[in-house]
């Protein structure tokens, strides 16, 4: 029997005003019945486009080439009507990244679950309802009978994703495509959803394509892995083999860019340069401009496909030629060495209550976002504040920044109450770095204006000094000065985050408050930014409060950790102590839920021993 799914030489082009964007080029992927394939890649690698091509969900103007064969049927020969009658839902189903927007808010859960099954699946109303109830129960939604008559806004994000999964499984598809199914969810929920998908797959004998940027998720959840870069599948093979002995330099670099929880924190392997333009695909290897082992042949011609069906890659390097991976240098011998005990920001008994009213005369509604938290950031240390969405960590960060005054409690900066500080004095002490580099820079200002703005506001320097300091700050974050007059829209996400860091550091503050500084970035860019922050901190003696949900990031950067749950601090201690032996049950759960990357092959483990 042939493979369930055979994608051959798939290419997808999107016409843009600037030319044809080659989103996918010559991608070939095969999938057996019941097999789980992970497609990994950074943003813009073409992984989602591949899935959309499979589901016929590409934008209308997209140009598609190559062939997709599903269970012996060439899908290219089918009309749209035949495809949706015979395949969509019945045999191929898909779940999307954003559970908040993939359900229609004006219809009940029950209607959305059963509609497709009744109209296309030949189910009667009653049978569809019965199946929906059974599935809701299976995906772990309590009280399914009541849920059927509820609307999407009455469910949490995790529950909505469960409903989406149930909906995809209504007609028992043979192939389930999950496009970043857990990226928008909290860590603990993410783990539950992934386990649920794995369980369902085994029970129903379903094949699955899991599209994600998270290598750890792929390593845990799939049999085979396809690594995509610049629209091409550059490495493909059995998950264990690819993760343990990556053969393509890109995969190697990507793996070394992931912060790991085992061993002491090490310098992350950052890939130089940025993702290539897919408007004018290169003649040679797509990774050549950023490859550490690049040769003349790489640029001149397409690299050969080496290896066998168990593990293949698009690279000129043979097994013998491939350099061995050198262990990276640890960045700190000891987490708490040489730190002073002077508090830079000292928050005591902070409580923040939000009051809202429905309409002008409606009843008052109060939420205690932060409840009696005391937190001290000491000079020179990195304190990680960990918690899931809704735990109050971002509210606490705003208060520690002095941007908001708490309902009760005090914040002192270098011994002075923040309420007594003038805005400019406060600005000289502490600066923020935000999560989303796309909204943290004013789109109508050039980089020079953005970075110089804090100096202009302070008004103590003349124009020439401001220009010099701006250039120094650009250099500090390794941004080329030719970008000085660019607008943020001309930069990539990582470059924007560098600009945000330069703006925060241009006035030389004592402390930084970083709110999820890397969670909007790709793995390789996250590595660049985390390395940069670590270096700058050592160089400038900064104190950092890092807010994050990612335990690996905590392990990478933090000296001390504070864990928040429901507005309260449930655990606080040194990084080693908390991560190795958490005393609180919630911290333990967070740690257990974080997808971790554990290579099984001994050769690699030695380097991290």
């Amino acid at each position, binding site marked *: 029997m042939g493979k369930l799914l055979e994608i051959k030489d798939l290419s997808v082009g999107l016409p843009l005003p600037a030319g044809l964007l080659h989103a996918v080029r010559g991608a070939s992927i095969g999938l057996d019945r019941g097999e789980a394939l992970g497609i990994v890649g950074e943003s813009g690698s073409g992984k989602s486009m591949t899935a959309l091509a499979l589901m016929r969900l590409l934008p209308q103007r997209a140009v598609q080439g190559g062939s997709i064969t599903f269970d012996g049927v060439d899908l290219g020969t089918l009309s749209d009507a035949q495809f949706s009658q015979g395949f969509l839902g019945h045999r191929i189903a898909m779940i999307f990244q954003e559970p908040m927007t993939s359900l229609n808010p004006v219809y009940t859960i029950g209607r959305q679950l059963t509609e497709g099954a009744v109209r296309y699946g030949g189910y009667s109303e009653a049978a569809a309802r019965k199946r929906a109830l059974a599935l809701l129960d299976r995906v772990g939604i309590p009280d399914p009978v009541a849920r059927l008559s509820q609307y999407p806004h009455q469910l949490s994000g995790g529950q909505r994703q469960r409903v989406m999964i149930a909906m995809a499984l209504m007609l028992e598809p043979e192939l389930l495509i999950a496009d970043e199914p857990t990226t928008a969810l909290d860590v603990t929920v993410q783990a539950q959803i992934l386990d649920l998908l794995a369980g369902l797959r085994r029970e129903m004998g379903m094949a699955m394509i899991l599209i994600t940027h998270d290598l750890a998720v792929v390593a845990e959840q799939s049999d085979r892995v396809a690594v995509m870069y610049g629209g091409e599948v550059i490495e493909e093979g059995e998950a264990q083999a690819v993760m343990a002995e990556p053969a393509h330099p890109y995969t190697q670099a990507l793996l070394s860019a992931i912060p790991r929880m085992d061993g002491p924190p090490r310098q992350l392997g950052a890939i130089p340069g940025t993702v290539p333009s897919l408007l004018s695909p290169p003649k040679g290897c797509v990774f050549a401009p950023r490859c550490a082992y690049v040769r003349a042949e790489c640029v001149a011609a397409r690299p050969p496909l080496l290896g066998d069906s168990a593990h293949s890659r698009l690279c000129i390097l043979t097994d013998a030629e491939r350099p061995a991976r050198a262990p990276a240098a640890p960045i700190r011998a000891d987490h708490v060495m040489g730190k002073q005990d002077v508090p830079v920001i000292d928050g005591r008994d902070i409580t923040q209550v939000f009051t809202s009213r429905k309409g002008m005369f409606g009843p008052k509604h109060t939420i205690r976002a932060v409840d009696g938290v005391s937190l001290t950031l000491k000079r020179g240390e990195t304190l990680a504040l960990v918690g899931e969405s809704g735990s109050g960590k971002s509210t606490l960060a705003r208060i520690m920044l002095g941007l908001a005054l708490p309902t009760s409690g005090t914040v002192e900066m270098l011994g002075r109450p923040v309420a007594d500080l003038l805005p400019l004095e406060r600005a000289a002490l502490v600066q923020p770095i935000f999560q989303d580099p796309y909204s943290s820079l004013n789109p109508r200002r050039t980089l020079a204006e953005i970075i110089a*703005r804090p100096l202009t506001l302070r008004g103590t320097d003349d124009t020439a000094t401001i220009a010099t300091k701006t250039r120094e700050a650009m250099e500090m974050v390794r941004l080329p000065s030719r970008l000085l007059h660019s607008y943020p829209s001309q930069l990539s996400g990582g470059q924007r985050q560098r600009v945000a860091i330069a703006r925060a550091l241009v006035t030389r503050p004592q402390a930084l408050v970083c709110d999820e500084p890397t969670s909007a970035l790709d793995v390789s860019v996250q590595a660049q930014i985390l390395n940069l922050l670590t270096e700058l901190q050592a160089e400038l003696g900064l104190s950092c409060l890092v807010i994050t949900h990612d335990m690996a990031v905590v392990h990478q950067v933090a000296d001390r950790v504070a864990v928040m749950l429901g507005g309260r601090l449930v655990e606080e201690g040194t990084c080693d102590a908390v991560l190795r032996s958490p005393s609180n049950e919630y911290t333990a759960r967070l740690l257990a839920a974080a997808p971790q990357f554990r290579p099984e092959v001994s050769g690699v483990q030695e380097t991290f021993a």
Partner: protein
Amino acid sequence: MTQTDAFTFDAPEEAEPMSPGQLMRRRALNHTGFLIGSGIIVTLALIAIFAPLIAPHDPFVQSLSSRMLPPVWDPAGSWDHLLGTDQNGRDYLSRLIYGTRVSISIGLGAATVGLLIGVTLGVVAGYFGGWVDHAVSFALTAQLALPGLLLAMALVFIIGPSIWVVIGIIGVLHWTYYLVVTRAATQRLRNLDFVAAATASGATPRQVIWHEILPNLIPQIIVIFTFELGIAILAEASLSFLGVGIQPPTPSWGLMIAEGKQAMFYRPWLVVLPGLSLFTLVIGANLMGDGLRDITAPEGRN
């Protein structure tokens, strides 16, 4: 997204990138709509400024012997009065040329008055929220509930017609679009991180509004400005047509249409010519506005 990657990757290190000014000029020259629109507006503005030099006749001199002469393309027309004459024997072309002055100054003036009121209220309401927002929203609802033209007529009637009064009244009655759009945009902008970053750098609300928020509102404001420019010109025409706008003998396109309407069926050019002029001016303003929005947005969208 991919376009931005293209920029950062493709630009060779040694090449000097184009300055924002150069880029803007290039976008402007490639934008057909903008070129046509600004061509119309510049031409009309020049006509308005140099009206005394261009006009072949004095627009106020009446000549009862040559009333309602047809334009030159009519068999009965003459080259002396290119576009004929009106009911009082005044040269129609000269009156149209002088009428440009009235229409353009009322359009610009009223749209500016509305802009000042609407944008100020919109930004303040959107930025501060709370009771300020409630108060402004109440003013908006009140304004929307009033019949505009009727109110304008009443006000002009009470205060007394003059070009300044007409500009003022039309402006004061046309700020709602500015308010609605800038308020919503400000509410969105003020929650973005770059506003928080500015606040964290010690910026006062005033500095945040001027430096961070207003520049981001410019594309929307330009579009509404050109839209309101057209509306204001038409409002003036309506008021003049109804007899409470510009007073005769000042030449205004609206007034000319009003005066020509009795003879509309057998001397159609009396209505068609000022109507066409109005149409051209409004279209020109809108084309230029859309173009300006496209070329000033550094995001380069569209």
